[in-house]
């Protein structure tokens, strides 16, 4: 459905651009995140949301007011917000006696909740608590996941996918190598997930590849996984489906071998060998030796 295929067509170009930005496309926009406070959010949770907003700017929206909802019971208000602000990722912070310092991180598909994972914040060090220079806003971070749990456990696998989706940033075709400044490192050990952010310092080493030194910078969180609401397998597979038009077109008749040689195939029509031009091909001309052999062969007739 186009922007112009609606019952009420947009009357201004600006409205049309607004609708076109939100409609489903082949190549999608960068995912926006909405950071929401629950009815009883405390200082820790608010600080966490503010820091994550600083990391994810400008692809995030931080809601200032508290919203009294329970994402695990009723997802309608989250879906409403997602539709209004066109955000497909969300982070909901709340605090109560049973679940202290609670953070629900989730994503949407087609404005309906796909996955939601509840994490408890055990320790939090904020951006302003660590006093050193920070990297500029909007830097694309390098993401590193350490720990075999991230592959073995199904819930951790979804959490890994969610975190990559959340912190990935815009998809770019090329990067400036000196601008690789931000690293987000997630370690899963002993049922806990440690998230640390470091600033990268490139030091001279003897060879082309620089030596890396890390400096602790941004927000660092110690998380514990609580409840999860994961999409069923077929729903998840449906959301992973990419349209065929995005698949890279395969070039026919070109093949490569192990050594890097490229082979091409040419298909020719059937040649009429009788009409081959042989007079101008030096190689096909009779050599003097052959000619003399022929002469001697037919000479008995002629010698008369």
């Amino acid at each position, binding site marked *: *459905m186009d922007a112009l*295929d609606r019952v009420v067509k947009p009357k201004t170009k600006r409205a049309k651009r607004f609708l076109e930005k939100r409609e*489903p*496309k*082949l190549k*999608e*926009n960068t*995912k926006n995140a909405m950071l929401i406070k629950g009815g009883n959010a405390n200082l820790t949770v608010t600080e966490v949301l503010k820091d994550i907003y600083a990391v994810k700017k400008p692809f995030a929206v931080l809601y200032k007011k508290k919203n009294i*909802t*329970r994402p695990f*019971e*009723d997802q*309608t*208000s989250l879906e409403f917000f997602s539709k209004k602000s066109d955000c*497909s990722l969300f982070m909901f912070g709340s605090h109560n006696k049973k679940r202290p310092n609670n953070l629900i991180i989730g*994503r*949407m598909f087609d404005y309906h909740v*796909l996955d939601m994972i509840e994490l408890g914040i055990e320790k939090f060090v904020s951006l302003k608590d660590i006093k050193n220079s920070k990297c500029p806003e909007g830097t*694309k971070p*390098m993401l*590193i*996941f*350490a*720990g075999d749990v991230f592959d073995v456990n199904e819930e951790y696998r979804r959490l890994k*996918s969610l975190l*990559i989706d959340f912190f*990935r940033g815009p*998809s*770019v*075709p*090329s*990067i*400036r*190598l*000196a*601008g*690789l400044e931000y*690293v987000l*490192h997630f*370690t*899963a*050990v*002993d049922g806990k997930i*440690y998230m*640390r952010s470091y600033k*990268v310092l490139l030091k001279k*080493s*003897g*060879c082309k*590849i*620089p*030596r*890396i*030194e890390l400096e*602790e910078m941004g927000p660092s969180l110690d998380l514990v996984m609580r409840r999860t609401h994961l999409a069923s397998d077929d729903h998840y597979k*449906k*959301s*992973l*489906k*990419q349209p065929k038009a995005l698949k890279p077109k395969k070039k026919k008749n070109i093949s490569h071998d192990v050594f890097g040689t490229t082979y091409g195939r040419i298909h020719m029509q059937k040649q009429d060998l009788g009409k081959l031009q042989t007079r101008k091909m030096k190689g096909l001309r009779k050599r003097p030796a052959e000619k003399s052999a022929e002469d001697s062969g037919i000479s008995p007739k002629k010698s008369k």
Partner: protein
Amino acid sequence: MAAVRVEEVLAAADEQEAEKRRSVTVEKELELEFDLGNLLALDRNPPPAAGLRGAGPRREALLRALARDNAQLLVARLWELPAERAGGAGGPLVAQLPEPTFRLPREKPPPRPRPPTRWEQFARLKGIRRRKKTSLVWDEQAKEWRRRWGYQRAGGDPARAWVAEVPEGADPEEDQFARLRREKRERVARNELNRLRNLARAHRAAATIPAAPLHPTGHQSREELGHVARVARVSTASLGRFQPRLPKEPAEPPSRSGGRKRRFEPLLGNLAAERSRQLEMLRDMGSKKPVLDITRAVNKQLRQEEAEAAAAKGKKKQSQRGKRGRRQQRVGRSGKKSGARRQQQRPASSSTGGGKRKKA
């Protein structure tokens, strides 16, 4: 002698190279997995659990060392990518990133092509193709190139036309300006109507394809379940003709017009059916049992009323109760009320029949 010295020199050079590389090499048990398009590295090695258990600066130091090693490997890979200097010789070094390989779910489903409109179908059938029109037209009066339509168009502003010729067969008393205005209004209205009709057709076509057949568990509504049940019935090899029905499910043939047209039986035709129908009618008139199942009708009415009341009340209390609470409420209420009323109806119906009183 010379050969030995050459070998020595080469060995020394190798040593130096190795020395340099030592500062950037990292030893790992299992190789990391890289997705350079996303600047992502996945380390499968189990981290040293013993060291990380004790809280404090030791843990931070261990985590930082681990992060440093992994980051070094990732940066080494990134530096190996084909790079060039952007913007001339003095510009920054820029590397070409490959396509991201890690599969992440989409934000919205891929766009569906809209079905062709009535005109587009006709044009395709007839082989009519679009002719590209020039955007500027030569205006004889103004002797210059003017737009085809819009501001300062070629034929002059139609709103300011001060002459309207009376066509040949027309009534001389008729107001031509009014006629032109009326015809324009009619054209616009017809255009709008056709556009809405095309939209409705496209919408109907999209609705018949159940794109998301069933919402994930916990979100299904009664209508959704009914619709899906209907679709499931028809998805057999014989298109649902031999599917067994539930005891009280009505047997209805699928109507192509979606229930809009009324269909009547022919007046004369099936004599056997007419006979059986008349006999059935006589039987029902003579029998003591009422044809209309009053209990069912009343329950249906009650359920409808309750649903309306619950919807009105539920909107108010939705945030507090949540979906589970709402379901429990409905079940509880409907059980009590209709049970009491059902008992009321039973004596009434049985008294008309003159039968025994049944206590449920």
